[in-house]
């Protein structure tokens, strides 16, 4: 057996180290390390509660809006305020824009460049993949980055700027949108649809979302232009559906609430396909393998105090568990729990894996583009965007939202008008969790086991595909 270390593991958000025990050319055991700790939870303690709106989003530059709305959601309960409906819609538009921008960044900048590597030079498809996706040089980024920047112009109108905005308040959003601005929002949504339909899918969003079975997807792909079909052909050539199997349980906190409830429902999907209500009171965090002092397992009662010399620890990330189990989160979980037909069928066929995670992100992007169009239309421009009443109260409050990469929770305790405790469990805390006190490995650690590395060792591209298929956000992970 040999032990290899992969790091700095780049083209993820933040830094990452993976240690692998290799037996007969395959991964026998994996350990995942979040190598950065900044101490946001310690920084928040003792501050006025509303300061969380400044501090918390700065955990993460790529899912800053998600962090903002998780904080705003917890504070909303503390203040007993009902947000203005326009504020809810404007938040949804901005949040969906961030979510979709993150999916584009992942696909074009983080994930696809691995197919352009020299290690694949002998494959007949390599020339086209390299022309399109080579990191910083491929033709795709020349289209994807401007499309992303254009989509993020939604932030200029609703949020002032991105990342790190104070527009997302407990009572709604801080800028009332006028008619001209709604027209501009529509134009941006139109540009985004145009990019998706021309470059990503080479088909209408409606046609893409009508696909509901693996065989329909295969037929649709054949002979089709566009980067999604390109990916599907690469995924088949490399059997990516057999790579990086998830642990089985998929979780979503639910997202994009409007007058009709959550656009993406909350819940838990078991590996047999049954979907149940989310037992959010059974969320715990274990610090047995984290460089953290012992504390309560209940995020509503725990604190974070680093202990860099702790024996048996190997990550700054704690180990979140739901009813004692590791769970996978992300677009695939969100779409599965929501019952999206194609993702449901793909999961029934071959479960959570590298291929299906990427498909779920792009299907979700198509859904988000349609939702954004609908929310812009639903704004009632003569009505308020922000409810400004509400007084801060002491107590324990929870904000549960979905970031691009999955379920994000903020547990806030207010006492004497100040933050007593603040605990954050981020999406990649779930996916890239270290082992717990029972020795149960986290989702990525389980997914890597069995991956073939052959003679390439630490340079095996298969490892890159598995890790990046989760779209890790390491700056959120340990925060």
């Amino acid at each position, binding site marked *: 057996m040999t032990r290899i270390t992969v790091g*700095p593991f780049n083209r993820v958000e933040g830094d990452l180290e993976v240690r692998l025990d290799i037996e007969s050319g395959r991964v026998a055991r994996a350990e995942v390390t979040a190598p*950065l700790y900044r*101490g946001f939870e310690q920084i928040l303690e003792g501050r006025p509660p509303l300061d969380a709106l400044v501090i918390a989003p*700065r955990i993460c530059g790529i899912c800053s809006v998600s962090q903002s709305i998780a904080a705003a959601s917890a504070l909303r309960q503390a203040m007993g305020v009902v947000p203005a409906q326009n504020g809810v819609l404007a938040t949804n538009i901005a949040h969906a824009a961030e979510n979709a921008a993150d999916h584009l960044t992942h696909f074009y900048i983080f994930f696809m460049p691995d197919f352009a590597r020299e290690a694949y030079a002998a494959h007949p498809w390599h020339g086209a993949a390299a022309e399109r996706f080579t990191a910083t040089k491929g033709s795709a980024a020349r289209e994807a980055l401007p499309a992303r*920047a254009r989509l993020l*112009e939604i932030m200029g109108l609703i949020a002032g*700027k991105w*990342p790190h905005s104070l527009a997302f308040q407990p009572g709604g959003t801080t800028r*009332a949108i006028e008619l001209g601005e709604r027209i501009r929002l529509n134009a941006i949504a139109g540009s985004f649809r145009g990019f998706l339909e021309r470059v990503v899918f080479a088909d209408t969003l409606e046609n893409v979302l009508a696909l509901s079975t693996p065989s329909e997807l295969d037929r649709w792909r054949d002979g089709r232009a566009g980067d999604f079909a390109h990916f599907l052909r690469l995924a088949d050539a490399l059997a990516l559906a057999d790579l990086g199997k998830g642990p089985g349980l998929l979780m979503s906190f639910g997202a994009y609430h409007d007058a009709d409830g959550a656009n993406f429902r909350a819940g838990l999907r078991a590996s047999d396909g049954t979907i149940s209500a989310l037992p959010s009171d059974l969320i715990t965090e274990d610090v047995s393998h984290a460089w953290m002092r012992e504390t309560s397992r209940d995020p509503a009662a725990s604190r974070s105090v680093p202990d860099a010399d702790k024996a048996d620890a190997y990550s700054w990330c704690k180990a979140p568990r739901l009813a004692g189990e590791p769970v996978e989160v992300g677009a695939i979980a969100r779409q599965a729990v929501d019952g999206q037909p194609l993702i449901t069928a793909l999961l029934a066929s071959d479960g959570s894996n590298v291929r299906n995670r990427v498909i779920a992100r792009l299907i979700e992007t198509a859904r988000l583009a349609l939702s954004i169009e609908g929310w812009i239309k639903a704004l009632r421009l003569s009505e308020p965007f*922000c409810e400004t009443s509400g007084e801060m109260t002491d107590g324990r409050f929870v904000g549960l939202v979905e970031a691009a990469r999955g379920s994000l929770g903020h547990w806030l305790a207010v006492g004497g008008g100040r933050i007593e405790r603040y605990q954050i469990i981020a999406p990649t805390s779930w996916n890239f969790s270290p082992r717990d006190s029972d020795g149960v490995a986290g989702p990525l650690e389980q997914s890597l086991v069995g991956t073939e590395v052959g003679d390439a060792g630490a340079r095996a591209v298969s490892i890159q595909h598995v890790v990046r298929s989760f779209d890790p956000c390491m700056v959120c992970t340990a925060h």
Partner: protein
Amino acid sequence: MVGAEGMTRMLWLQGASCGGCTMSILESGASGWFDELRQSGIDLVWHPSVSEETGEEAAELLEAIRDGRERLDLLVLEGSVARGPNLSGRFNMLAGTNRSIYHWLLDLAPLADYVVAVGSCAAYGGIPAAGINPTDAVGLQFEGSDVGGALGAGFRSKRGLPVINVAGCAPHPGWIMESLLALTTGDLTADGLDAVGRPAFIANHLAHHGCSRNEFYEFKASAEAMSERGCLMEHLGCRATQAVGDCNQRSWNGGGSCTKGGYACIACTSPGFESAQNYLQTAKLAGIPVGLPTDMPKAWFVALAALSKSATPRRVRVNATADHVVVPPSRSGDKRSS
């Protein structure tokens, strides 16, 4: 286009960072940032978020630079330098290298022609340095507004400059690119930096300049609650009259800015902005905001404010506390003179 040999070699590293400065710079360039860099003669040697090289390939590249086998023109850091615990740097290891970012920076910074701190974290410590500063986070050459930081007050890069601080949380993509390009053309010199290392072409302006709420400011017609249209200085915490940056002379994300977005400037370009509290409330003493414009006698400001308040047109007064325009400008300007 310059050949690869003549190009400026730039290495971008992330310390105790949120990655937001990278998210900002990825908005730059009409055909994307990568094209813009090439067209500007910058060869991005390695960037953790975008480069192909990973794991040992990336580590070997950094070692080659450290050992002098590869040239380094621009060293960019995004994120604070987490020195703790006990100056070990272990709160922020560069994965796979068994060495902290702090120690990598001590190795690499003296080898670069120029060292650029992108964002207020790399410049001054920023958000990770707030509160109890759990990781002993500092900027490259400042700890808050005190010179020193990770590299020390005496540090000068190979071309003789201190660290260039492109402050902001996150900075405008234009601030980052223009600073980098002004270095490559030799137009940004030590004289072009302010007292805390910020490029003067940015820091010679105040965030207040060009604010779309200017008429409300002139008449001290103030918003009282979030989302109202009035000036945010008197009640809602706005620091734009004291914070440097041409924020309101640029468009953020196609047309925004903090004050256009409806919320206060929190002075994110200033050292120590992370240590404030109650960001969205104006601190007052005897009813007068504590933070007034710094280069104006306070008594004059108070006298002028009282005068302008008494002269406030009804339109401005009413609209200041509304979230939509309630009273439009009078139509007299439309009338033809006969």
